[in-house]
């Protein structure tokens, strides 16, 4: 798994590879850093992620909870059908402040107009 954090209008954490218990610590570190640095929220680009396990989902949920508890938002960019399906298992569509987007422009629109 590789992680790259870029600062555009929003912070974008770009993750590629497979996320599981063996490397979730790196993801958690990147998410924690962005929760601190971008409390209004940020984008996690999972376009290049082919697999995510329950530990990866837990890391994302932890960031989501911390962001939304202070009014922030989290936008996830997901194109892989299986990664989307895994998120659907935990009913992310019912979570306010969490946005599943098809691409980066859609994710950035989540934060525009604030």
């Amino acid at each position: 798994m590789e992680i790259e954090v870029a600062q555009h209008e929003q912070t974008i954490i770009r993750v590629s590879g497979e996320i599981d218990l063996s490397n979730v610590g790196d993801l958690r570190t990147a998410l924690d850093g962005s929760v601190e640095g971008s409390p209004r929220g940020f984008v996690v680009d999972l376009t290049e992620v082919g697999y995510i396990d329950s530990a990866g989902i837990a890391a994302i949920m932890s960031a989501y909870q911390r962001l939304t508890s202070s009014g922030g938002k989290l936008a996830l960019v997901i194109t892989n059908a299986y990664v989307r399906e895994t998120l659907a298992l935990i009913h992310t569509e019912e979570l306010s402040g969490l946005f599943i987007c098809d691409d980066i422009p859609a994710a950035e629109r989540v934060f525009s107009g604030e």
Partner: protein
Amino acid sequence: MTGCMDSTLVPGLSNTAAMSGEVGMIVNVKFDLPAEAVLIPVIRCQVDALLQHMGVTEDDVYRAGIVVTEACSNVVRHAYAEPGQRYRVELEYHAERLVVTVTDFGRGFDACDVPEPSLGQIGGYGIYFMRESADKLEFSRPGGTGTRIEAEICLHYRSDEALDFARELDRS
């Protein structure tokens, strides 16, 4: 039938193939490995490579990956209080199903005590993901210690030819 006989190497491991009266098993692989997270993707890659190569559908390959990853993660995270312990993973590949058995020798747990995750909770999704992905899932505590997770994934193929080929190997 050597695969079925091999399974007696693991104490208490049920012999699914023998019980169901099947005549064969295509591949039987056993891993005896340290309870370390770093090896989890290695096991998942083995499952992935085997099923992909045999022409199993992407859906079933992904489901099998979830089951084996979560079962191994469960051991690594919860089975042992002390580091340096080991556990076992067995894969039984039949033409129309994959049986994944993960056995640890740790403190054991009762899967019935693990609640369904609530909306937005942080963690606690592993067993739920396994339940959602496997066609059959059983937890047991053979001999009263540790935990054995036995999961079955029904397999479908990308083509009739691939299924026929797998069935042929299953009978041989």
